[in-house]
């Protein structure tokens, strides 16, 4: 295929048609990114539990809806399941002294079996919007965007309130300066467990939203969730800083985290539209996240580094 025929085969209308779908999925992953924001930015822990708890949330939601529960109640239980997963990671870390990253990996690993059990040993379960009343579905994208946006905004507001309270401040202090926090009488172990639990509760909730949107739960649906979440958090920070600069407050940061999820998914839509192999998506995502994570370091190197001195001296 020559370059001209390649470009001729790209249909701009088709890209535009796919955009709303990208936005609705992006919001759902943006909600997950809010959960990851708690651990990654506030507690300063990269919590790998989420790859498992995202699926747990999806599996619980689908099974309960199939059992006749209303979708909102199923989501609530899914959230509790996520909280429990985060609690386990927190306990492994604080009570058994396992490094946070390994504790997360262990929980995530075990959740694969747990999730299979939840789904009755099936690798995937469908829940049809024709038979059940779902909160959102890819069949009706405008409504899905609206529902997702309302939930996301509600969560941002709750986050904004909670992390301004005494307890929320204690969680932030724990991530920011543990030695100081202990000296000020904060039980940092409890704060870590609390933060990990809340984070995974939100992640499971977003898993429950995704299964309704796509109409099925899959045992592998959470694979790489942590990377997508980090991508959303980081993209959100970069975009937020570019637009608001110093006026970017906590509310803005949280809102832009959700927007980061949307931007990520729109990029995916474009990449797919360019007919790049979708199997390369994970490689592509990892490269993007690595680049963004590297930016602060590279910037500081630009200001002052031995390599720079060598160049100057040579």
């Amino acid at each position, binding site marked *: 295929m020559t370059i001209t025929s390649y470009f001729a085969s790209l249909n701009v209308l088709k890209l535009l048609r796919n955009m709303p779908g990208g936005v609705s999925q992006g919001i759902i992953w943006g909600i997950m990114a809010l959960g990851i924001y708690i651990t990654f930015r506030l507690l300063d822990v990269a919590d790998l539990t989420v790859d498992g708890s995202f699926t747990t949330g999806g599996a619980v939601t689908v099974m309960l809806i199939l059992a006749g529960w209303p979708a909102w109640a199923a989501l609530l239980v899914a959230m509790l399941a996520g909280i429990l997963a985060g609690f386990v990671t927190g306990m492994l870390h604080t009570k058994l002294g396992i490094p946070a990253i390994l504790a997360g990996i262990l929980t995530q690993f075990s959740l694969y079996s747990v999730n299979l059990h939840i789904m009755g040993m099936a690798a995937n379960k469908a829940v049809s919007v024709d038979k059940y009343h779902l909160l959102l579905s890819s069949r009706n994208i405008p409504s899905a965007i609206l529902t997702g946006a309302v939930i996301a905004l509600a969560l941002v507001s709750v986050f904004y309130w909670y992390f301004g309270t*005494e307890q929320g*401040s204690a969680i932030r*202090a724990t991530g920011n*300066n543990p*030695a*100081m926090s202990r000296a000020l*009488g904060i*039980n940092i172990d409890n704060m870590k467990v609390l933060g990990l639990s809340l984070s995974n509760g939100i992640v499971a909730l977003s898993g429950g939203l995704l299964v309704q949107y796509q109409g099925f739960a899959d045992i592998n649906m959470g694979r790489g969730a942590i990377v997508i979440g980090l991508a959303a958090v980081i993209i959100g920070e970069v975009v937020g800083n570019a637009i608001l600069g110093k006026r970017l407050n906590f509310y803005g940061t949280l809102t832009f985290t959700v927007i980061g999820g949307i931007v990520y998914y729109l990029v995916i839509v474009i990449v797919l539209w360019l007919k790049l192999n979708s199997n390369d998506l994970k490689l592509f995502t990892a490269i993007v996240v690595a680049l963004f994570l590297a930016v602060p370091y590279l910037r500081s190197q630009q200001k002052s580094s031995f390599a720079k001195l060598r160049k100057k001296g040579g």
Partner: protein
Amino acid sequence: MLKLENISKTFNPGTINEKKALNGLSLHLKPGDFVTVIGGNGAGKSTMLNAVAGVWPVDEGRIILDGHDITALPEYKRAHLIGRVFQDPMMGTAPNMQLEENLALAARRGRPRGLKWGVTNSEREEYHERLKILGLGLEDRMTSKVGLLSGGQRQAVTLLMAVLREPKLLLLDEHTAALDPGTAAKVLELSDQIVQEHNLTTLMITHNMKDAIRHGNRLIMMNEGHIILDIEGEEKKKLTKQQLIDMFAQKGGSIDSDETLLTK
């Protein structure tokens, strides 16, 4: 107020790095005592403060503060009794949180932290006034991230945080050692002022013998994990640097400070 009874602590027991840091240490502070602590490197000064603060459990002995036996309490459970300022100016504050948020965290030291607002408006007014007294212009930067402040400013803030909720005991662990001489003098003066104003029972470690003599009503010297010299009242007031150095040598201690190097 504070009673240390026969405290011992050995780090890395049974290994090649075994270090007996505290060795049968006993000390009794009366309410309002302002004690300066001097001694060479490895004498156990910071270890003593960390034992009181509960950074780790001691091997032997008892720690009694304000009538409570706190020996078995973890650090965060003794925090309501103790205010602390660390040697490292970065250690006492949360850099990514606002100045007023840091103060509010300290104002709730040792209290349950529920779902009430982290900083209230009436608190803001109080902090504004108390920051003004520091004379560093920080009252106009209450919503700045603390990480943007200088080391001296952060140390002054930590000092204020330590006494915002009046502690039974104030621990100052060489809190001016990392500052430039001018800032160090200012922070030290501020410490004196705050201690006197609230009549706080205080333990202050210093490397500077002049400071140790000039501040406080009592001076203790440590060596090899216990106290080898304890001077107070009039006797301390009349003390000179040379006397201190002589006494130290007599007790077989080693002291490292600028003064000893210069007098040799």
